[in-house]
């Protein structure tokens, strides 16, 4: 079913506390990022390099996936392929059941959100415990993440304090952030120790060496990949890169763009399960490669740039629309500008097509994108795909072509390609400036007075001034 973005957004705009929390954090994230890129020329150079790395990887995707698989298998990591989220969930369930595991600890993973693994496993009596502090808070609140890097971006410390107190009444109430974090540590430490399975996402997969690379700050990700006897990594097929040499520039851009840090506390490069003679590390490592519509994006020169994304969230942080409404209004796994181009292509324009309207095309997103994805250009393209009548290059297309709108543009086009008619109508509008029915401005006048045409047109005024024309 199609989402109702406009309605969701209107609702979000009325939630004052979300508005305040969101805008505070967004402006901090922007400040942190800009402090990390003080040299504009260097930034441009680095993002050109990163763009070309991602471009090369996506162009060579099938070959790199096979190479990756070969190297992972050689290293002892098991590889699973899933067309759909259901298949991916089933793969995870099978592994859980084979180990008679009743719960797993999970590091932050947007692909696991995409899979809806928590709900799926719950329906089979298996619990997923989120261990990233932000995700932990979101899970307590029974919500979905509102941001891909800062899941609890819309909550302030007071709200988090009462949430924690509700679930852990034995611990004294506190709004101190150190204490709130300590509560999560206290609760989860035992879980890490006893978990039969750990699950995480992946930031980059290196085809050349068969390596899974994860970045994080808290150490919960390392706990999930290191302590339980089984580690399951889930990720999208597009996360592969060709060479180990491709990793340092991407890492640097990812982390700085996301949070402004020079590097995360932990960069975890996993190339093998526990080897003979080693005392720890998982006995089994599984990688689930999820397609779920991604491969369909590869066939178009312009659209495939969507897959270059490294999920830093910078476009989200800089989007003026996201800043007003937050992540939930999008009703997608990935919100913001990148979500607005990715989700309709993956799940179909009929469902998410409205998100292409969630942009003023201001260009703030592409200006900060570390891999130079031309997001406004792709939005423009998708708007076309949504209304065009000939062929169509995106799944579930053509839903937005409304007959009345199509007729209006047809008329507009007739008028504007007929100068005499245009001049006549423009003059007419100026003469009727006081008689324009207010109804045609609906929406506009929520916050603004109706625009009023001038007394005469520029055409008339310049003609009267005797400006030369040919």
């Amino acid at each position, binding site marked *: 079913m199609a989402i109702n973005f406009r309605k969701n957004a209107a609702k979000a705009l009325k939630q004052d506390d979300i508005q305040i929390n969101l805008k505070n*954090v967004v402006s901090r994230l922007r400040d942190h990022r800009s402090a990390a890129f003080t040299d504009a020329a260097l930034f441009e150079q680095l993002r050109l390099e990163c763009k070309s790395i991602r471009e090369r990887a996506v162009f060579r995707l099938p070959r790199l996936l096979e190479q990756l698989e070969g190297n992972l298998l050689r290293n002892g990591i098991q590889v699973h392929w899933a067309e759909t989220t259901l298949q991916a969930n089933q793969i995870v369930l099978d592994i859980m059941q084979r180990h008679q595991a009743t719960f797993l600890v999970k590091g932050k993973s947007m692909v696991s959100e995409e899979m809806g693994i928590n709900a799926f496993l719950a329906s089979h009596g298996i619990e997923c415990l989120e261990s990233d502090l932000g995700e932990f808070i979101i899970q307590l609140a029974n919500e979905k993440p509102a941001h891909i890097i800062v899941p*609890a971006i819309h909550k302030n410390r007071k709200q988090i304090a009462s949430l924690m107190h509700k679930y852990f009444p034995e611990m004294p109430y506190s709004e101190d952030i150190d204490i709130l974090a300590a509560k999560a540590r206290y609760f989860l430490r035992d879980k890490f120790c006893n978990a039969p399975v750990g699950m995480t996402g992946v930031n980059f997969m290196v085809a050349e060496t*068969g390596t899974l690379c994860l970045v994080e*700050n808290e150490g919960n990700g390392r706990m999930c990949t290191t302590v339980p006897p089984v580690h399951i990594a889930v990720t999208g097929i597009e996360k592969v890169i060709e060479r*180990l040499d491709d990793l340092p520039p991407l890492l640097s851009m990812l982390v700085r763009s996301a949070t402004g840090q020079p590097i995360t506390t932990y960069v975890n490069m996993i190339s093998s399960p526990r080897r003979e003679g080693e005392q720890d590390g998982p006995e089994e490592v599984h990688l689930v490669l999820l397609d779920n519509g991604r491969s369909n994006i590869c066939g178009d020169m312009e659209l495939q740039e969507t897959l270059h994304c490294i999920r830093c969230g910078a476009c989200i942080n800089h989007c003026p629309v996201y800043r007003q409404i937050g992540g939930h209004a999008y009703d997608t796994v990935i919100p913001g500008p990148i979500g607005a181009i990715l989700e309709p292509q993956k799940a179909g324009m009929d469902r998410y097509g409205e998100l292409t309207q969630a942009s003023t095309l201001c260009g703030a997103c592409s200006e900060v994108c570390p891999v130079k994805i031309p997001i406004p250009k792709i939005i423009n393209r998708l708007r076309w795909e949504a209304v065009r009548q000939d062929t169509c290059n995106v799944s579930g297309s053509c839903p937005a072509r409304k007959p009345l709108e199509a007729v209006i543009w047809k008329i507009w086009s007739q008028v504007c390609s007929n100068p005499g008619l245009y001049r006549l109508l423009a003059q007419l509008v100026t003469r009727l400036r006081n008689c324009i029915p207010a109804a045609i401005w609906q929406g506009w006048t929520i916050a603004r007075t109706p625009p009023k045409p001038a007394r005469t047109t520029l055409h008339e005024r310049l003609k009267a001034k005797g400006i030369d024309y040919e």
Partner: protein
Amino acid sequence: MNDTRKAILNRLNHYQLKYSGIESDAKAKQTDWGLEEKVKRFTARMQAVQAEVHEASLETWPEVLQEICHAKAINNLLASPSTRWGKEIYADAKRFPSLKRFQQPVEAWKTDFFNTIEAAVTGSAGGIAETGSLILCPDMQEPRTLSLVPPIHIALLEKKRIYNTLSEAIHQQNWVQTGMPTNVILISGPSKSADIEQTMTYGVHGPKELIILLV
């Protein structure tokens, strides 16, 4: 399973566009700072994220380690007896807190490990000046969890093994040619989070303190 794999790869191959081969020549310039500058940068970056950096020498480090253990009132110290550093520690065991070793697989003593070990000391495979990172390649002697589970992680790093950048480390350590270690970890400070109001808090799930002895 194989059908799924085939279907995905077939589709990708079918859709695959011709790679234009436009590879950017824009490669970040490789910096070379020299030893002193590298140490300075490494230290500054580490301190900026609340890590402690102590300068010592090949002769004095056991003494510095002893002082740290004393100052932090550490009651037990997890250390490998068979590494270069570990041998020296165990040879002079009486000056350190009660020494613990990873004698058996983690499963055999997980609860104990999680709940009683206060600090661990490890070596390191190198450092990175640009980002202020330690490179750890855990192995049979020094398991992965040594630098993760105990609340205090003390790491020894030889100054001469501080690389300018991660790229340099990758090349100097020959990871591609000789095969990646099972697990390479870059560590840049103690565990932290800014998930609440983008305000930094230290010591979330990993070590609360990271202490580096530069030798």
